């Protein structure tokens, strides 16, 4: 009986802890990169458009393969018919 109670208590504590941990994940304080911690993110290497030639080549390969000219935010759809 005592063992059974201990197991129940342990299971209850585990569930509470799990829910508490999940709640922590939802907190912006714990998950958000703070403004003063963004030196790496602000580095020029993090810019996806830092090399115009590489961007043009990637775009060319993308729309040639996917028939998706204009499918990245420009006017028109991804049908390749315009």
């Amino acid at each position, binding site marked *: 009986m005592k063992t059974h109670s201990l197991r129940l208590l342990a299971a209850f504590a585990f569930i509470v802890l799990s829910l508490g941990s999940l709640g*922590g994940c939802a907190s912006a304080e714990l998950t958000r990169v703070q403004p003063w911690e963004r030196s790496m993110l602000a580095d020029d290497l993090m810019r996806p458009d830092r090399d115009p030639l590489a961007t043009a080549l990637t775009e060319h390969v993308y729309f040639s393969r996917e028939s998706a000219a204009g499918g990245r935010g420009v006017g028109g759809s991804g049908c390749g018919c315009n």
Partner: protein
Amino acid sequence: MSWPEFIACTFRTRTIRLAAGVAALLLAVGLRAELKVGDAFPALKGVQADAALPVTAGHVTLIDFWASWCGPCKSSFPVYSRIQSDYAKDGLVVVGVSVDDSDAAYRTFVRRLAPTFVTAVDARHELAAHVEVPAMPTSYLLGRDGRVRYIHVGFHGAETEKQIRREIESLLAETPSSS
């Protein structure tokens, strides 16, 4: 004590300790709050300045959080230098607090822009985390009583300069007892 009992007992003890740890962490996070207008600005003693930190007690103070990797911070420095030069005689104190991780980047930035105000480094981000700086740059304009009177998030060139000058003049015009 049987094995199941031993496991259950051990698990319970560790679980309780873990739960207490998580609860303490969540409580600590919950207790932190972004500095708002009307709050007292914390002491600057945690930051490392090249020169001695100026006396801010009883002075209108502009505290600017900046970083060498932040574009608008570069634009703000000449403006804050001009503001410091224009209003220092009236009792304004400007302090630039860097949140740079790299000491070399901090020093290069300061050498290039040569500010007329005192700069300091919050290398461990203790002050920035305490204040909960919402963006880079953010400047806090404090009254003579050390309380936050205006907060400027970001820097928008001439518009921000005009606004800050107007606010500084109104704070300087206040008598110590009325602030």
